[in-house]
């Protein structure tokens, strides 16, 4: 396109015999400066807020759960559970040893009400005490594992 245009050096005002009074001024090409300042423009529209910078709502009041509010009580209950389990296991072992010792006696049963009661206890209670102690210790292990798992997240 530049090849098809006329070289400005060959414009009419640069030619011999050019009279500005007789010849019209060449039409200016390109942007022209207007009088009276810059033209009015539309009011600037504010940019939309970015998605990642949404206004953050103030944090609501967090209700503290009763378990978190009293960790010491919960910890004491857990340790009490462990203690009860250990006591039950020790009692089961002691009663079982007592049952074996009673069996090794010639007469078997001890005389008197206390002896009969002790004999019945050694005969009947080791198993339930064993299961109760194991259950308490298992519950203690699971509770501590679950609470530690929730606390780590």
């Amino acid at each position, binding site marked *: 396109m530049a090849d098809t245009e006329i070289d400005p050096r060959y414009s009419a005002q640069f030619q011999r015999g050019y009279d500005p009074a007789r010849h019209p001024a060449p039409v200016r090409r390109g942007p022209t400066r207007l009088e009276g300042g810059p033209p009015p423009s539309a009011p600037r529209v504010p940019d939309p807020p970015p*998605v*990642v910078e949404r206004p953050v709502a103030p944090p609501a009041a967090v209700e503290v759960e009763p378990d978190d509010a009293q960790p010491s009580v919960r910890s004491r209950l857990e340790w009490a559970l462990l203690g009860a389990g250990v006591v039950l296991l020790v009692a089961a072992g002691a009663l*079982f*040893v007592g*049952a*074996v010792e009673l*069996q*090794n006696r010639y007469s078997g049963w001890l005389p008197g009400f206390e002896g009969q009661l002790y004999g019945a206890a050694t*005969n009947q209670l*080791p*198993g*339930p005490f*064993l*299961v109760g102690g*194991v*259950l308490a210790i*298992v*519950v203690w*292990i*699971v509770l*501590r*594992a*679950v609470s530690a*798992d929730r606390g780590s*997240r």
Partner: protein
Amino acid sequence: MRLRPIIVLAAMSVGFAGLAVAATLRQVIPNLDLVEFSYEGVVDQVAIDEYYTWLQSGWVYYDQTPWLVTSAVIAGVAALALAAYRAQRRIQDQAGSASATASRDTARS
């Protein structure tokens, strides 16, 4: 050293199961060393001392096999439940992180 609770529970289950097997096997009457004796011309065999030694052991008279099996089952079920719980938590965490990444990508695009 911090013991893993699942391993501890599994070890408890296996230990109680082993004790239950031992208690059951203890119920089997052992091979007795019989001793011959003669009384009024009749020859007989006896193994009284060995038999009563075995019979008077607490393992025989007070068989704890059902309680040991119950304890093994309790520990084993607890180990399985804890393992399932942790697996579920891990899956939820992975799903949550994937959802958060997808939300960030959507917001960025």
